[in-house]
């Protein structure tokens, strides 16, 4: 089970104006199956780039990223990414259809091999989509188009889409950045439950240290210029975690001091 997802001396350069710029330098860490790893780091340090590398959208310049010993060479349904961008929903699909779209795409094989009733299959997907929309508290907006939603609502739809697909690994790029604290805590709980009950592996970019401490089993801290891992901490606080507990605050303090 160990070394489920592994990064070995990963480096990444971007072409900037007329020079190349190193944005990630010699990144090493691994994530176990079922673990929730939080990635913390200053703005622009390469967190999104890191997730995109793992998702397989871009290639490393050096180093290797592997899952279960096999090198990752491109995107796959086993690693579903939630982007930082507000505009990741398709403007031509309603909220519900945006989710159904992803569900359909991710269950293609299922549809072809198991199901003889495509109508039933579609019905099932719709129910599932509605279920997740309810989890992010947007049931009543199912027929809205994305341009009619607020920023936070768009992000929640994208979250629902990612969760509904239930990929083996979920790569989440600041999914709660634009949410009020109440909604945020509800969704943190949702994520935590999902991970504990279904043992999903989650990589989670956040800038909120307390969020990382609440959710993560492992906390990966990056510095910038160039992006480098400065610390990988295990978080063994027992569940359910109490934000007001002393250990909780101690760990938070410790991480804060790293910056």
């Amino acid at each position, binding site marked *: 089970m160990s070394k489920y997802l592994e990064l070995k001396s990963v480096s990444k350069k971007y072409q900037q104006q007329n020079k190349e710029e190193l944005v990630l330098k010699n990144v090493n860490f691994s994530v176990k199956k079922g673990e929730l790893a939080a990635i913390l780091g200053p703005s622009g340090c390469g967190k999104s780039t890191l997730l995109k590398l793992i998702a397989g959208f871009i290639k490393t310049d050096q180093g290797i990223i592997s899952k279960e010993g096999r090198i990752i060479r491109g995107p796959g349904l086993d690693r579903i*990414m939630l*982007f930082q961008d507000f505009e990741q929903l398709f403007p031509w699909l309603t909220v519900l259809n945006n989710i159904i779209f992803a569900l359909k*795409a991710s269950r293609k094989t299922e549809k072809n091999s198991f199901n003889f009733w495509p109508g039933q299959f579609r019905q099932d997907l719709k129910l599932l989509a509605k279920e997740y929309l309810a989890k992010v508290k947007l049931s009543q907006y199912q027929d809205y188009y*994305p*341009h009619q939603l607020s920023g936070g609502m768009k992000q929640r739809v994208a979250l629902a889409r990612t969760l509904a697909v239930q990929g083996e690994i979920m790569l989440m790029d600041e999914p709660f950045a634009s949410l009020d604290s109440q909604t945020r805590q509800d969704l943190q709980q949702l994520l935590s439950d999902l991970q504990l009950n279904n043992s999903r592996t989650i990589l989670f970019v956040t800038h909120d240290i307390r969020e990382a401490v609440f959710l993560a089993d492992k906390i990966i801290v990056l510095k910038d210029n160039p992006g480098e891992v400065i610390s990988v901490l295990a978080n063994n606080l027992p569940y359910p975690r109490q934000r007001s507990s002393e250990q909780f605050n101690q760990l938070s303090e410790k991480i804060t001091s790293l910056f």
Partner: protein
Amino acid sequence: MISLPDKFKQRLGWILLLALIWQLIAASHFFSELIFPGLDKIILTLFTSLTNGNLLKQLIFSLIIIAQGLTLTVILALSLSILAYFSELAASLLETLTALAHPLPGIALMPLILIWFGAGKTAILLVIIHSVLWPLILNLRAGFNAMPSIYNLIAQNYCLTKLEFLFKILFPAALPYFISGLKISWARSWRALISAEMLFGAINSLGGIGWYIFQRRVFFDLPGVFAGLVVIILIGIIVEDFIFARLEAKTVQKWGMSK
């Protein structure tokens, strides 16, 4: 966005104004009546031509050819642009072909078309295709290239097949470009049709509306020429208002992809 009925009213107003100006010029006898016939004459000719069935028959003939030509061209343009989107080699071939063929006037291709395909419907179809294909390809390719790159990432992530990517993402994302390309194509196909029918026409038999106009011109019947043009204009406006306006209202406007 003004509402449709308002738009219609404005449109009608402008048309009436233009008609009035025409009639005033005609009535002023500044130009010989042989060359600038009054609207009364034009409408009278239109009426007789329509009722004796001649114009109507030619018109239907032309509309069928346009429908065929446009369908064919749209399919061709889509296929080629898609091919070019996925293959760099195909892209460079298509770019070369477009650069070669687009500026070539149909007149220059006439001898070859005549020899290979005769002077029948096929020849007219080919002239329409040559006239419509290249601009449509240019618009489609511009639309494909302007697609936000995040959609591409999502498609990769959900392992969409190329076909799914096409129909579910690339087409809707490029729709504003596609619609403006279609509008251009629609008008272009009329122009091409008329020139082609004039060039390939056959006396007395079915030659389409272009032939009708040409015949009127060689027999020095200018009201007849204008009657033919009025028919083309009317059809143009109907298509604009009933097909394109609705298409836009139901898609890009509803989705917030256009003002």
